[in-house]
C-alpha cells in the first residue's frame, strides 16, 4: 500500500512537472492578443537551436536561444512576416535552423525518397501477388494424397470411399 502510494506520488509529480519545465524557458514576452502569442510560439517551435541541436528555439534554455527568441520577438512586434523572419535566420545560420527543410535539388532525396521507396515496394508486392495467382496449382500423386489424409487424421474408411 505504501509502495503504491509512493509510486502514485512520483507519477503525479512527473505529470505536474512536465508542463512547467516546458514553459519555464520562455521569457515573459508581452503580447497584444492570444493569437499573436500563439503565432510567436508556433514560429519558434519550427526553428532549431544550434547549440542543443535536438531542441527547438521554443524548448531550449541555451544562451543563444534566449537571444534569438528576443530577436524573433522584436521582429514579430515590428510587423515582419514569417518569411522575412525565416530568411533572416537562414541567411545567418543556414537551412539547418529549419526543422522543415526547404524544397530544392539537394533536399529532393529526403522529400521524395520515402515515396520512391514506397512505390518500389508497392510494385514488388503487386508483382509477387500476380505471380502467385498465375502459378498453376500443383497436382499431387495418390501416394501423397494418402499421406496427407493420414496426417490430417482422416480415417482409412474415408480414404477408401474417396478412392474408387
Amino acid at each position, binding site marked *: 500500500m505504501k509502495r503504491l502510494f509512493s509510486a502514485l506520488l512520483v507519477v503525479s509529480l512527473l505529470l505536474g512537472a512536465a508542463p512547467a519545465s516546458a514553459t519555464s524557458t520562455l521569457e515573459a514576452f508581452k503580447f497584444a492578443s492570444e493569437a499573436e502569442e500563439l503565432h510567436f510560439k508556433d514560429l519558434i517551435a519550427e526553428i532549431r537551436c544550434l547549440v542543443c541541436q535536438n531542441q527547438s528555439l521554443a524548448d531550449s534554455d541555451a544562451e*543563444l536561444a534566449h*537571444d534569438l527568441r528576443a*530577436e524573433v520577438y522584436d521582429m514579430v512586434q515590428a510587423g515582419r512576416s514569417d518569411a522575412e523572419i525565416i530568411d533572416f535566420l537562414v541567411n*545567418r*545560420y543556414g537551412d*539547418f535552423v529549419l526543422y522543415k527543410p526547404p524544397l530544392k535539388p539537394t533536399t529532393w532525396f529526403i522529400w521524395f525518397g520515402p515515396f520512391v521507396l514506397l512505390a518500389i515496394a508497392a510494385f514488388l508486392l503487386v508483382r509477387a501477388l500476380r505471380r502467385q495467382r498465375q502459378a498453376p496449382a500443383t497436382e499431387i500423386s495418390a501416394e501423397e494424397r494418402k499421406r496427407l489424409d493420414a496426417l490430417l487424421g482422416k480415417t482409412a474408411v474415408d480414404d477408401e470411399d474417396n478412392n474408387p
Partner: protein
Amino acid sequence: MGRYLRYLVPLGIFAVLVAFLFRGLSLDPKLVPSPLVGKPMPAFTLTRLDNPNATISDADLKGKVSLLNIWATWCASCRAEHDVLLQLAETGEVAIYGLNYKDNRADAQRWLRQLGDPYEANAFDEDGRVGIDWGVYGAPETFVIDSQGIIRHKHIGPLTTEVVKTQLLPLITELKS
C-alpha cells in the same frame, strides 16, 4: 544469374547503407557550415574593448587579409586556443581582430593583460547582436576575410597549431597573392 540477383540486390542495398552510416560516424553534427562563406562580411559598428569611447567597424578589417576571432572569458576553449592565436600573431602573416562576445569588459581587458594580446583590436559585443548577424552559435569561432571584405572560411571550435598550419596559413597565403 536471375537466381543470384535476388540475393545480390539486398546485399548491394545493405552495402550502400553501411557506407553512408560509416561516413556518418566521422561527421560532427556540431559543425554547421556557415551560409556566410563566400559573401561580404555583415556590417557592424561597435565600441572597442579597450576604449568605450572609440568605435570599430567592418571597414577596419578591409584592405588586407584578416581574421575575426569570436571569443569570451567564459569560454574554456577560448583559453585553450589563446596561445595558438599569440603564436599566429607573432608570425605577422595576418591581422587578427577579435569580437569579444557577450562578455564583461573589465574581465576581458584583464584576460588580455594577463595572457597577452594577439589582437589588432577588439570589438565589444555585449548583447551578442553582432554575433547573431555573423551566425555565431558558440565561441570560439574564427572567420577568414579577404581584402575585399569577403568571408572566405569559417573555423568552428578552438584553433590548434595543426589547423593553423594545414588550413589557415595556406588559405591566407593564397588570398594574399
